[in-house]
């Protein structure tokens, strides 16, 4: 064999190097390798990508034209106003739904021999999950771009300049990224791809609907309104509306509604830190 020889012949002895810990550089590198692999995989099954883009487009069209006429937002029942109000909600809902794919794919990986291969390699422990969530983020970004174009076609606009609009997209994607870690945690916990794909619905529907995304929480019963006001999802939607200059910005005493940008950031960071820690620990200790 004429390959570049890799020095692997370690003279076995008691003087093993002290516990070579994986550095941050290697973590990033390994995660990128896994992330790229996941993206490459997506190009082999383009159906998945296409379906994940079509679904939110259907939501835009359905909500705009079915609910549009009967919704009263910002004191008017003008369907055009509702469409502007709706778009941020759809953006946020789309990134939330993306977590279903995440947990399904991770559970699928965990149930196959491939994960044993990864766990037997001298790679960073968190890289399999970090790579996966990174790939999800990339896919999510494409979906949001497609959605923005569709939104523009049905009359949605941003009014506060490009920078603030980018900020809004950034917050939406950060929330989405945070939630892929929730998906990852579910994925490593349930260990059956079927359960992983259905379990997320248990929290996704309440989280997205008990919020300010599609209706004005002012119309809800008081306790539900409080839930909606403190819902992390609502904070991001509210921040998006403010930054895009879309109608329906909610004025209530609740702190996350008054400081929506900061609240959205804090929520997302907390979710990432907590879920990532738990998911990576679970992955490391998993014994399929």
């Amino acid at each position, binding site marked *: *064999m004429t390959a570049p*020889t*890799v020095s692997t012949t370690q003279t076995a002895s008691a003087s093993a190097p002290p516990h*070579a810990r994986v550095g941050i550089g290697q973590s990033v590198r390994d995660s990128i390798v896994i992330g790229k692999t996941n993206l490459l995989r997506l190009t082999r099954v383009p159906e998945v990508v296409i379906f994940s883009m079509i679904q939110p487009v259907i939501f835009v069209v359905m909500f705009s034209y079915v609910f549009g006429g009967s919704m009263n937002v910002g004191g008017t029942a003008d369907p055009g106003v509702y469409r502007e109000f709706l778009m941020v909600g759809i953006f946020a809902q789309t990134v939330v739904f993306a977590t279903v794919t995440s947990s399904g794919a991770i559970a699928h990986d965990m149930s196959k*021999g*491939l994960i*044993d*291969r990864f766990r037997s390699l001298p790679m960073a422990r968190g890289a399999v999950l970090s790579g996966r969530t990174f790939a999800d983020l990339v896919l999510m970004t494409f979906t949001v771009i497609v959605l923005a174009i569709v939104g523009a076609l049905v009359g949605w606009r941003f009014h506060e300049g490009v920078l603030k609009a980018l900020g809004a997209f950034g917050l939406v994607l950060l929330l989405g990224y945070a939630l892929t870690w929730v998906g990852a945690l579910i994925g490593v916990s349930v260990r059956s791809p079927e359960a992983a794909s259905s379990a997320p619905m248990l929290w996704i529907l309440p989280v997205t609907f008990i919020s300010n995304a599609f209706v004005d929480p002012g119309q809800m019963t008081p306790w539900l309104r409080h839930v909606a006001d403190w819902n992390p999802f609502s904070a991001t939607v509210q921040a998006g509306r403010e930054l895009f200059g879309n109608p329906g910005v909610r004025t209530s005493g609740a702190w996350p509604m008054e400081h929506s940008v900061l609240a959205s950031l804090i929520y997302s960071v907390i979710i990432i830190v907590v879920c990532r820690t738990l998911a990576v620990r679970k992955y490391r200790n998993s014994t399929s």
Partner: protein
Amino acid sequence: MPDAIYAEGLVKHFGDVRAVDGVDLAVPSGSVLGLLGPNGAGKTTVVRMLTTLLKPDAGHATVAGFDVVKNPNDVRRNMGLSGQFAAVDDYLTGRENLQMVGQLYQLSKRDAKARAGVLLERFNLGAAADRTAKTYSGGMRRRLDLAAALIVQPSVMVMDEPTTGLDPRNRQALWDVIQELVKGGTTLLLTTQYLEEADHLAHDICVVNNGVVIARGTADQLKARSGHERVEVVVHGREDIVAASTVLAAQGHGEVTVEEHTRKLTVPVTGGARLLADIIRSLDEQDITIDDIGLRRPTLDDVFIALTGHTAEAAEPAESEENVQTENLPTKEMAK
């Protein structure tokens, strides 16, 4: 040279089940150890502990000189694992699979690419290198999996039932690859439930049952324990069975066993080929027509029966209540 793989008192429970119940192993550098046992014997659990996939509940083990619990990453750097299920990504091509594994072994992108190319050729996957693994046959997937394990030319290889599910031709091809590997100096730990495979590939064999090693030695040593050679006769007509049995009883060295439906008679013998000739002559004198006759050397199957009282295939799974039984078998001294 110190042992490339060393394990002492490995124990692993799953709930109430003691899947591995105190296993000691020593594999000298450059040799091949076959871990032989039926399904559920605990072979895979031993492998998973040695390859850092599972933490032992008790005992300790080193691979390539590194402790599997204290320095798992050093173990991983020096070891290749080819598991029971081909661990390849279906949606990636053969080449992409190997490059990914190479990079995760911390090779540079260029080195990973070069190694992938070399291994694809060596494992006869060159033509299929740029097709997704989904389109591969079972044999190709196994070869790709093995190639992935060999990306960094590890000094220690662990293979868990490498040929399970392969057809005879592919099995033979994989055996050739494994033998070539061993010739190159790789230390190999191999699990198998095929007695023939352990006989063919391994220098030393550990027979595992219900989580404990019940015998160890070379294939020849183990065979010697299971007793004598046998003569097997298949008579042409059912009516000749009794007469043939009398002949065998006279010439043989033990009890004659008869399989009525196959018309096969077996008797332990001492005396080899000359005795075989005698038996043929005696049968001929009695006008017994035979379809087949042969001198059979003991197989590892016989060893297994001698050790456990049943064949490997029919052995009880580890979950059964018969765990204790093996301890009472005359195996303690054999393990010595």
